[in-house]
């Protein structure tokens, strides 16, 4: 297992390098220029050229990349061109919020998806299966920002059961942290729960039809034990793949959800940064997001080894 993890981590290095090239290159391909954005109504061609020189934007792109990458490796993403704050400070402040929402959404998705998919598979063709299928179809059809608006209004404003906006960090209060994450996590996780439920249902039905399950039943094992111990572990393999993908979706989806719940995550910031061509901030966000996604995918890959011994052997 340790070798698998080490191999995956080493394999991630060139991927991070490629992502850094993309992050740097794409920002430079965007129309307009950062200097024009900063100068606003003062953006005469002379002033733009002067600011370009000051920001180093007039240097060869390879030199710009090298300077940026060597600093970024040391955790220095530079200063925001718009707010003059250290990008690293912004990332440190805001990524924990986004990751909290994304993790909350993943927990919701897993809980509801796995339970729902399992129930649907075990009660195939019955009313509960059909109800769950209907709910999963609805979950897939309704966008998470709309769910967020409804949850914030109904449970946050009308009922006052949960906070409609705001965020409290876990270092301030664990209970408040969870309390503030419940609605955003639900909004973010329900769509993914539907995906996972469908995958779980299909995977479990497939496994339950395998000869070794029939053999286990024939040996007289209790049905519940057969399902939980023997069937579900194998049914999880395709679900894990989906979870890996959904984890990336969560980080993207958090961008919208955190705006609706007024949470100071990276999403709100990155939208503004892209629009205002705040290159250091966009590049920092893309890099950190990419590293997080790569790390999560590495964990998913490693988890295959737990669920499927053949992966370990190969």
């Amino acid at each position: 297992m340790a070798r698998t993890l080490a191999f995956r981590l080493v394999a991630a290095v060139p991927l991070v390098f490629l992502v850094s090239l993309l992050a740097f290159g794409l920002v430079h391909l965007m129309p307009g220029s950062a200097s024009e954005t900063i100068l606003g109504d003062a953006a005469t061609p002379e002033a733009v050229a002067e600011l370009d020189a000051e920001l180093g934007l007039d240097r060869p792109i390879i030199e710009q990349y090298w300077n940026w990458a060597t600093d970024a490796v040391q955790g220095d993403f530079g200063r925001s061109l718009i707010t003059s704050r250290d990008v690293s400070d912004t990332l440190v402040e805001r990524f924990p919020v986004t990751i909290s929402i994304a993790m909350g959404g993943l927990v919701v998705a897993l809980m509801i998806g796995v339970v729902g998919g399992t129930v649907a598979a075990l009660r195939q063709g019955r009313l509960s299966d059909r109800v769950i299928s209907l709910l999963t179809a609805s979950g897939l059809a309704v966008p998470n920002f709309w769910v967020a608006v409804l949850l914030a209004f109904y449970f946050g404003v009308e009922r006052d059961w949960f906070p409609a906006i705001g965020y409290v960090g876990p270092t301030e209060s664990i209970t408040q942290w969870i309390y503030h994450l419940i609605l955003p996590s639900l909004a973010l996780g329900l769509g993914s729960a539907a995906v996972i439920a469908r995958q779980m249902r299909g995977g479990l039905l497939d496994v339950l039809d395998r000869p070794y399950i029939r053999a286990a039943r024939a040996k007289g094992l209790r049905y519940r034990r057969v399902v939980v111990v023997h069937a579900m572990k194998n049914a999880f393999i395709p679900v894990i793949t989906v979870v890996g993908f959904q984890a990336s979706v969560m980080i993207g989806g958090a961008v919208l959800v955190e705006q609706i719940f007024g949470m100071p995550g990276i999403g709100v910031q990155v939208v503004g940064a892209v629009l205002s061509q705040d290159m250091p901030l966009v590049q920092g966000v893309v890099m950190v997001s990419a590293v997080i996604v790569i790390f999560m995918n590495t964990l998913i890959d490693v988890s295959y080894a737990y669920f499927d011994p053949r992966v370990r052997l190969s």
Partner: protein
Amino acid sequence: MRVRKWFVLFLLLALFAAACGSDDDNAADVISDRDPVSTANGSTDNDGSDGDPSSDGGDDPTPTPTSSSPSAAPTGPSGELHYAVPLAPASFDAHSENRDFGMIFYTLVYDGLVNEQADNSLEPGLATEWEISPTEARFTLREGVTFHDGTPFDAEVVKWNIEKAKVTPGTTGALMRNIDSVEVVSPTEVVFNMTGPDPDLLNNLARFPGMMMNPNVSPEDLASGAVSAGTGPYVIASRNESELVLEVNPNYFDPDDQGFEKLTFTTLTDDEARYNALVSGEADIATMRVFQLADAEAAGFPVAQAPANFTFLHFHDIGGNLIPEFADVRVRQAIAHLINREGWNAAIARGLGNPAVQVFDQGSPWHIDGYEGFPYDPERAAELLAEAGVSNLTFEVPSWGIFNAWHQALSAMLAEGGITMNIRDVPPGQNVTEVAQQQVGASVTIWSSVHADTAFGNWLSPPTIWNPWDVPVASVIGPYQAALAAESIDEQNAAFRAMLQEAYDLAWIVPIYRNPTITGYDPEVAEAVLWDNITLGLYVRDMVPAS
């Protein structure tokens, strides 16, 4: 069995967390302090009487009532105010800002030599007296003032700030162009040597260009707000992209401007999030959109409205360099006749704005009584276009954010006259950049001038961003020069009115409507005092805790 146990355990944890969270005692830090505050007038004199209103500051716009008045005078600052705002200043270097809404924040941290009030009238700030002539402006500075870090404020600081503002590119530098040099007479007296008459000098000193910042703070710390660099009533306690926390400055010279001990501005870009924050009690004041007004009032939250900036169509290319047809006054007038101001107001502001044919309201010295401009008249527009021999006119405007709805409305109205106006999405602020770079023929924009002299400098003067081809229009420059040479305020105002009327008649400036600022508030905390002529503007200096 194990799965069920875990599920039940998680449910119990979630319920426990929810139960703890709903306890008001444990409420999140965004929940406001709603303790009612007893009030009594124990404030000191604000020195407001020792300015010299007989100077050129006497031509200030006539004060109009603020949208709401303070509910009571407190014994001192108390309580907290949480304000949900749609956007925050990008930089705390006030000289680099040109968007009026930034005044909400800057005027809490900084002072100008002159300070602006909610009705746009002026009062002494860091200067207590002044004398202004066409050749010099002499200011007597307030004594004993220090910056938030203890650095003394004196004439050298004024010189440093004005010289900094003068070389700041864009609007700030342009507004300071008439100050030739700054001379320090003594620590409490400073003289600006002027290149000529500058009727709006005081107004400009009360806005971004005149904000006095601490020269000992590094440019990076100044811009980021990492160090509180003002003399103003509040000190920056913390600032990041989503929250600005200000705490009262205990050494401030005018305690009347400090209603609250602490101010928290939370940036919520989503309209629904701001509304939810107000209604759920997590903000005391929230900037709202017109479509939320009825809901807020139904929920028991009063809504303050104030006339904000005028919206108008400006022909940047009056010389026809980019769009040759725009050089013909008949084409511009035809476009002006195609604008249905009532329909615009109904569609965009749900009738809460004010359709307008001029950019200074009744009561302003630059309002032209009886002027009707170019009323909505598609038939007359068709005649004018036919006279000009123009058909199938097409042009493009860059647009973003709030400009999108305005440009869409204008595009639909112009289509009625056979004119095609294409809208191109650009990043925020890029529209101004493109105007400055001679890439835009005309666009809808926001009138930010509170003085007719500033109006000339911003929109009509040959060396200006909004007249990017530097077209000199003699019939506008003539009255402007007459205004500068006028020997009395009345004569000057008459000349300014003539200048503006010419700009209207040439359909160079085509006023459309005055959009409203709409702010919901919790009356148990404080009444909102809105800032006239500033979209989204809240005048916090006049706000006090509810009694």
